[in-house]
């Protein structure tokens, strides 16, 4: 295993961390407008109050890590995805300041403006993340100079749009499951109804999305196929050597994914809400891992020629930088994990409003 693989995994870990953590606070934002009344809306916002900023840091760090470890992926991805990405940034700005500013004024018009900012920002962000992942699977029109040759309309293909809606439903479900832990009384009963609705939107979308992926991009399961499907282009030596082991691992993730999804209604019914959350977090982790396994060792796929794919070697930094940064990350990550645990532990339990709340 070389440092390129380690960084592929590290960037993956950061993205999984981001998808799980910001996933639920985007989800809270997606559901925000469904809650009625000022008190409920404040509860919703304050359920993520102390943590949303830290959750977003996972994205920022993933961006920094991508820049440092795979600069060509960083450059190609963001310049290809230019306009959608700018929209994403504006959505993230809007939701961030909406949280801070909303409760600064008593006026209903003021509050309802920022409520909308928070919710629309969250919905847009979830859709655009899905759109981005969808395009990664479908491939960008990347030329031999690693530059994007398509235009913004190519990015709005049906598969990517489905991915956007899939992401929206997944985060809404995850957000509702998080809120179920943080609320009580009538609001909690309402939240549980949201979970049911979101779940029954999500499950069919999950099936449709998986089938669509298999139909349009069968090579996505080449790494799962015990060597039966040949990946066009580059197949990593690691996979050739350990075909069986990796395929077994991949199918274990698939199985865990399905079990996690099935476990959501079971734990909800039993009233073990913490486990419901762990299930939906595992579901998200599994989805991200399946994508990562599907495209490995590529990071961006060219739909012009597999030879133009950006993979963990032609897109990476120098071995020296990868090694140095891996050492730094190894020092830093235990700290990061411990602050995260301390913060979530400090703010465990139901949301209570006090004078410092939003």
């Amino acid at each position, binding site marked *: 295993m070389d440092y390129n693989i380690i960084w592929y995994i590290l960037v993956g870990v950061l993205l999984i961390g981001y998808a799980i953590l910001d996933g639920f606070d985007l989800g809270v934002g997606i559901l925000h407008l469904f809650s*009625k*009344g*000022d008190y*409920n809306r404040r509860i919703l916002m304050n359920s993520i109050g*102390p943590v949303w*900023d*830290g959750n977003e*840091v996972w994205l*920022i*760090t993933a961006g*920094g890590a991508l*820049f*440092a*470890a795979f*600069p060509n992926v*960083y*450059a*190609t*991805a*963001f*310049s290809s995805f*230019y*306009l959608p*990405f*700018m*929209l994403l*940034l*504006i959505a*993230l*700005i809007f939701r*961030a*300041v909406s949280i*801070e*500013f909303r409760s*600064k004024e008593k006026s209903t018009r003021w509050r309802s403006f920022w409520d909308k900012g928070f919710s629309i920002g969250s919905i847009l962000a979830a859709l655009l993340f899905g759109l981005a992942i969808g395009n990664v699977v479908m491939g960008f029109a990347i030329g031999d100079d690693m*530059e*994007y*040759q398509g235009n*913004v309309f190519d990015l709005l293909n049906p598969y990517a749009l489905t991915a956007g809606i899939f992401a929206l439903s997944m985060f809404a479900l995850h957000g509702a499951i998080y809120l179920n832990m943080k609320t009580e009384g009538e*609001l909690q009963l*309402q939240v549980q109804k949201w979970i049911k609705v979101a779940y029954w939107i999500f499950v069919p979308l999950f099936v449709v999305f998986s089938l669509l992926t298999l139909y349009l991009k069968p090579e996505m399961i080449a790494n799962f196929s015990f060597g039966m499907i040949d990946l066009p282009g580059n197949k990593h030596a690691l996979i050739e050597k350990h075909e069986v082991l990796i395929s077994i691992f991949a199918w274990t993730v698939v199985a865990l994914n399905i079990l996690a999804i099935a476990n959501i209604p079971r734990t909800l019914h039993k009233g073990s809400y913490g486990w419901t959350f762990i299930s939906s977090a595992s579901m998200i982790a599994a989805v991200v891992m399946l994508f990562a396994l599907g495209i490995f060792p590529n990071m961006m796929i060219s739909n012009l020629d597999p030879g133009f794919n950006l993979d963990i070697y*032609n897109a990476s*930094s*120098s071995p*020296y*930088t990868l090694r140095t940064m891996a050492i*730094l*990350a190894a020092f*830093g990550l235990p700290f*990061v994990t411990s*602050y*995260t645990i*301390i*913060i979530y532990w*400090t*703010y465990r339990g139901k949301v209570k*409003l*006090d*004078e*410092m709340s939003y």
Partner: protein
Amino acid sequence: MNWDVETLSRIQFAFTIMFHYIFPPFSIGMGLLLVIFESLYLITRKAIYEKITRFWIKIFAANFAVGVASGIVMEFEFGTNWATYSRFVGDIFGSPLAAEGIFAFFLESGFLAILLFGWNRVKPGMHLFATIMVALGSILSGFWIVVANSWQQTPVAFEIVEDFGIRRAVITDFWEMVFNPSAMVRFSHVIVGAFIQGAFLVMSVGAYYILKKKHLEFAKISFSIALMVAAMGSLAQPLIGHTHAQVVEKYQPAKLAAFEGLYETQKNAPLYIIGWTDPVTQETTGLAIPGMLSYLVHGTFEGEVKGLKEFPKEDWPPVKGVFQSYHLMVALGMFFIALTLFSLFMLWRGKLFEMTWLLKLYLPAVALPVIANQLGWISAERGRQPWIVQGLLRTSEGISKSITSEEVMISLVLFMIVYTLLFFVWLYVLDREIKHGPDHLQVIEAGFKKRSEKMDVIKTN
């Protein structure tokens, strides 16, 4: 002007970073003050310090939120608009950005949760610890960003390689890259500038209360402490700036020449207090101290300073703008020294808070350090032009190849609309918080828990 991708991307970068750069210096400066205020609270256990700490935390939070929100843009703009630059420097520039995430942002955002919402949840000692960690996090974040930027100014510890048809710089020694020749001096300059900016905000609000004869004890203590920070910062700044200028002379002589409008290489080079420079006639006129530039750079009036004519004209920075932004920054710095030292003297004499005119001066003065910090940034960045990485890559070579000017125009307009809105909302919220003033502690204890508020709301289905 030619509205091509390069021009528009430069305008967009300048606009988004200048907007962003209003906020982090406030956070860094106020972070330090929060640590001081809260430490005083823990040492003295006086309620007034708790009141002070809690009030400034609210102002800090509103400012921090806009800073974080506008900061995400900065990190990704390198990839969206400057893809070729990113490919060239990814190895080097990306590393400090990643380090900033791992070592600064997580620290800052994690403990921010306790700083903002933790009063009733953690013990006072833990709360102070969180405040210190947030302040430290914001300083560290400044460190890594300045490191990344400084490498662009004074690139060292790299070699140029060509991989997969792409020419790029790769690190040969990580720590030598981090502590590149200009990194520490620029970092000190930026952080002290931030301390001054934060302190001026506290003084401006304090002066407002004193003039209004409201919250007097609160205002006087806040003002006095901030004044000491501002005075120390202002005094330190020329010393750091001086060292900084020597580094610039050594590594970016064209930039130094542009700072001072120096066209001919000369001994006994003058230092302008105020002046006008014209790159067409290649003349600089104004009020100058003869020989002072040579003396400052080399310690002797005989020291030779390189003029712009040493360099091909296409390598000249935009001289006029750089000269003026640099001189205005220096002038503001001098003004801060005079103002804060005079105020300190009056504080010592016990007369400061009766001097209405002086307090009135402090109300708008909060804008001046913001302007000075922005001017510093302009001098540093425009002074580096036409290079995006000094001597290695031109700005025109750094742009993304796959984006169109229409796309950049759309995003630029979007940012302008959103940021203008945000700026006014931020001012409005700040104004409201300031007019509302610090809470009485009894009010704080009573909190918000109104039963009636809870009843009106739950309308399920």
